């Protein structure tokens, strides 16, 4: 019949080829970019396993045939950071001594302030919120000289407390915003019910809000720890030479080379410095992405 469909070919959806030209382009772009992003990591690792002859005579791309951990040992224990030659392990302890207290204090203050702003509004709390938002964008360098004066007046300039104080201060605006937004997103009925039951300011905070805030505490700890660990400027200015954090020690190791540059030691020290934030990144996954998105506004 004239109107019936012709059944000369196979029916059903057209079979899709395994690789279409489009798919090929997509994967090519993704893989080329992946190579670009992985390349420095590869170079860091293979360089740190070479000996110094292979660095000076060899090819940066080619991995060594006789890998050695000598450079790692030297970077950790005996590389010179200018004043003394005790390796980057000194910086690791300093970084821990700086990071732990600044993280705890700033999160403690910020969580309470964020709770106040979200649930106990007072006169000017909206203005205060706007100022906090803008404070994130002020470049640190603008407030640096006043802070040098303030810490000098307090008698703590160039000591551990100074660098901890400065990190705490600059962590506060973004942390407060993080907590304020999180607490504001919780159902307000919870807060009202607790009020009706007679719970007060601190009771509601510790018994209801803090237990519910595990995700936001995780995000803000990740944000603070990576941010403070990766800082360089405050460490240089406020910590004083005996308390220099790992990033500053790394920079000194690279710059205080005597004779030929020991790139294998430099790269081992570089990996060691990056290890803590990298571990946090690999372990925390999606929390890390949320944290950096929230924290990227830091001045």
């Amino acid at each position, binding site marked *: 019949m004239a109107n019936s469909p012709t059944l000369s070919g196979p029916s059903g959806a057209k079979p899709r080829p395994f690789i279409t030209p489009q798919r090929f382009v997509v994967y090519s772009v993704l893989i080329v970019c992946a190579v670009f992003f992985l390349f420095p990591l590869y170079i860091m690792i293979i360089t740190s396993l070479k000996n110094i002859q292979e660095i000076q005579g060899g090819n940066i791309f080619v991995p060594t045939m006789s890998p050695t951990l000598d450079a790692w040992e030297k970077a950790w224990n005996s590389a010179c950071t200018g004043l003394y030659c005790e390796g980057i392990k000194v910086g690791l302890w300093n970084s821990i001594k700086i990071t732990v207290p600044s993280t705890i204090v700033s999160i403690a203050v910020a969580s309470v302030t964020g709770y106040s702003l979200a649930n106990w509004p007072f006169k000017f709390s909206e203005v205060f919120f706007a100022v906090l938002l803008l*404070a994130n964008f002020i470049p640190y360098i603008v407030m640096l000289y006043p802070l040098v004066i303030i810490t000098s007046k307090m008698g703590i300039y160039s000591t551990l407390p100074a660098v901890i104080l400065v990190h705490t201060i600059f962590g506060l605006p973004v942390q407060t915003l993080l907590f304020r937004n999180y607490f504001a997103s919780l159902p307000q009925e919870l807060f009202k019910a607790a009020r009706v039951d007679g719970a007060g300011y601190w009771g509601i905070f510790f018994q209801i809000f803090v237990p519910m805030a595990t995700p936001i505490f995780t995000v803000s700890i990740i944000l603070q720890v990576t941010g403070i660990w990766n800082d360089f400027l405050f460490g240089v200015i406020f910590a004083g030479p005996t308390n220099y954090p790992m990033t500053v020690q790394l920079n000194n190791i690279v710059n205080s080379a005597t004779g030929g540059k020991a790139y294998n030691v430099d790269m081992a020290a570089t990996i060691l410095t990056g290890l803590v934030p990298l571990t946090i990144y690999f372990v925390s996954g999606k929390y890390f992405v949320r944290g950096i998105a929230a924290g990227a*506004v830091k001045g």
Partner: protein
Amino acid sequence: MDRPNPLFRNLNSKFAALPMMLIVLVVFVGGTLWTVLFSFTNIKIVPIFSPKEWIDGFVGFANYTRLFNTDRWMNCPIITHIGQSDWKASCTGALPNVATYAVLSVTLSIGLGFLLAVMMDQKIRAEGVFRTIYLYPFALSFIVTGHVWAWIMSPEYGLQHAIREMGWTSFTFDWIADRQMVMYAIVIAGIWQGTGFVMALMLAGLRGIDEDIWKAARVDGIPAWRTYIQIVLPMMRPVMVTTFVIVAAGAVRVYDLVVALTDGGPGIASDVPTRYVYQNFSANLGQSLAASTVMLATMAVVLIPWIRMEFSKKRT
């Protein structure tokens, strides 16, 4: 009936927010105002704010005039030597350097980040692996980033040496040692560190687009690439604005990366404003504060699109 004094309402809340308010007032508001105010004086080393010192030292815009006449801050033959024999269509100095860095790193990281996000959005295999690879540099500090790239781009031992050794003897890649090219070398390291982050924000934005938009576009027979450019991109305006402000604000204050990668060199060819401000604290405080204020003004300009967006959101 006795109404309670409003000053004592929510007293706990006020008390708890007090440390934070003090810090904001003293450090963020106070410190910024101090810097701006004293950039108009000829102070050398000021122990603390005093109005008398400010009035005695007031010099108007003198620090700014001197700053913009300093070659290390800005030297633009195109403006100063126009029509003369040494006229050149290029600027050098810390301010033009950061302009170059900001324009290129913002454009390239947003462009590449968006491209990667679109590619990642094509229901690909091993998405998690690619995401991890693109994002890990963002966990590393600029000091780490700078030293790795300094080693890779080192003319004597790095990429240039390796490729010449493989037989291409005329291959040249010595940007970190070249005054004209050094800022581009810093841009490479900057986009390596920051593009993954842009990709993550953009991907989150793409995933937030309603699936029905895609169905409608497909029914109308619009090709996918046109849907991305003409429909999806305009819908992602808020994500774009936020990303732009975050990335640009970071680029304006670039410091650690430059210190680790080139330390401002060769010579002072890759100096940037933050480095300029920091290095002039002791020798040239007035100019240093003026330079800080210029940075603050630049940041205000960067923030305009974001403030406008927030403002229009509230009105509609």
